[in-house]
């Protein structure tokens, strides 16, 4: 945009945007006329539309000029068309069916509120909060209000509505993707944090451990529980058989009076499972630990078969 002179008239502009400095505005000064008549290159037009979203003065000038440029469409002299054209056009066109009238409109969304004012000639033109990026559609909504209320090329509004609906669909899709990415990122972040915690624990100088052995139902399974002086504890198992749907592994601290549930585990496809455990105050270290198979969701006291057992050598 640097090729445009910055000298300009502020005469009839309505500078209401206090955040827009003259320095920011200067490269775009007086470009409204070029924009309205379609004489900006694609790059300059995009830059100017971005500027429009933050400059009420330029919006005001464009709005005042758009009805003029739209009226210019009537500036070409009418001409008689060749007579055979009529039959050709009418024949080919009517061979295709018009679009059905009763095609349902997409559900209304907040952006539609901007259009609702179009039916009320006295509705003030909304000036929209600046956005980070975009094709300037919101500006066009504002600019088109004048056209609509002066009875000009109001069909343009329908085009805008269509464009906004497309944009909204794209935005919804992008939002869903973003949410999914954020969820995955959050999961990854949590997994990373847990890995780091496990790593810190097992590499600590005060780490202690207890091994659990596979019982007859899972002879190839084994596990190790590690803890430190801060009572941070991790349970690492491998070789666990896969379970039928509806069953889950449940780990227990075995206390003298009754077992206390420690965690539910769902091994990965290799039969591996790692989980950080909270050690209840009632547990004396080193603990006695056992793992059973229980119904999904776990149970308050063990009811199923024993798969792993570990107890300290006294």
């Amino acid at each position: 945009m640097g090729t445009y002179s910055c000298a300009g008239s502020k005469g009839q502009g309505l500078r209401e945007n206090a955040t827009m400095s003259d320095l920011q505005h200067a490269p775009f000064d007086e470009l409204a006329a070029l924009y309205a008549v379609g004489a900006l290159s694609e790059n300059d037009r995009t830059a100017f539309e971005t500027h429009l979203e933050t400059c009420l003065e330029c919006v005001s000038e464009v709005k005042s000029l758009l009805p003029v440029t739209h009226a210019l469409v009537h500036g070409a002299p009418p001409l008689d068309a060749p007579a055979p054209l009529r039959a050709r056009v009418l024949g080919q066109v009517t061979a295709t069916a018009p679009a059905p009238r009763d095609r349902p409109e997409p559900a209304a969304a907040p952006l539609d509120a901007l259009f609702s004012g179009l039916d009320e000639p006295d509705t003030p033109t909304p000036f929209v909060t600046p956005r980070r990026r975009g094709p300037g559609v919101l500006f066009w909504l504002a600019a088109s209000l004048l056209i609509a209320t002066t009875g000009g090329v109001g069909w343009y509004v329908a085009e805008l509505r269509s464009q906004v609906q497309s944009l909204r669909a794209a935005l919804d899709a992008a939002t869903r993707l973003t949410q999914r990415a954020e969820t995955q990122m959050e999961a990854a972040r949590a997994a990373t944090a847990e890995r780091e915690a496990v790593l810190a624990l097992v590499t600590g100088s005060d780490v202690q451990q207890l091994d659990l052995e596979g019982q007859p139902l899972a002879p190839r399974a084994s596990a190790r529980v590690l803890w430190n002086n801060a009572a941070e504890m991790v349970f690492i198992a491998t070789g666990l058989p896969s379970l039928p749907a509806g069953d889950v592994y449940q780990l227990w601290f075995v206390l003298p009076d009754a077992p206390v549930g420690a965690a539910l585990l769902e091994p990965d496809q290799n039969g591996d499972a790692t989980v950080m455990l909270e050690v209840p105050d009632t547990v004396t270290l080193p603990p006695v630990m056992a793992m059973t198979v229980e119904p999904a969701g776990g149970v308050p006291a063990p009811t199923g078969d024993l798969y792993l057992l570990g107890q300290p050598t006294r």
Partner: protein
Amino acid sequence: MLLGTLIDVTGAGWGRTPTDDRVVDRETAQRMAEGNPEALAAVYDRHIRLVFGLAMRVLQDQGDAEDVVQEVFSQAWTQAKRYDATRGSVASWLLMMSRSRAIDRLRSRRAKPDSAPLPHDTAVVDLPDPAQGAEHGVLTAESASGLRVALAALPLTQRVAIELAYFEGLTQTQIAERLEQPPGTVKTRIRTGLLKLREALESE
């Protein structure tokens, strides 16, 4: 509101009011949306001179202009249900589609290196002389007389710059090269000309 009134008399016969035209436009578009070929024929007969004139003004080629006419009426036929008479005349609707399609076609033609050279200086050579307005249909019943008169009344340099942009789809830089003038001069001519047009139309 004056501008809207001005636009809406386009395509109307003298003595008809904008309200009459709105009613006709709405009813015709509705019949088109219902698939009535006679309605399309009526719209064609009423507006073809405007549409073809604009397409010829932009493209300067009869074959291309006829193709644009075909596309415009096809679009009007398939999108008639979207037309809203309270928001503009059928003439404006058709003409905006015509300009858009014609400019697209013109730019596409320019992008082809082996295409026929563009009619340079057409804006200067072919501009209707205000004194010969009747020959160009300026005073016919189908014209938007106020706009035409105001455009014709502009100084030639301003009118040429505006028409090169609006009817030939040229950018400020391209107009500057065509007219061998600095870009700043082109910008000033366009802006001054548009402001004069606005003033003239608002005083109608």
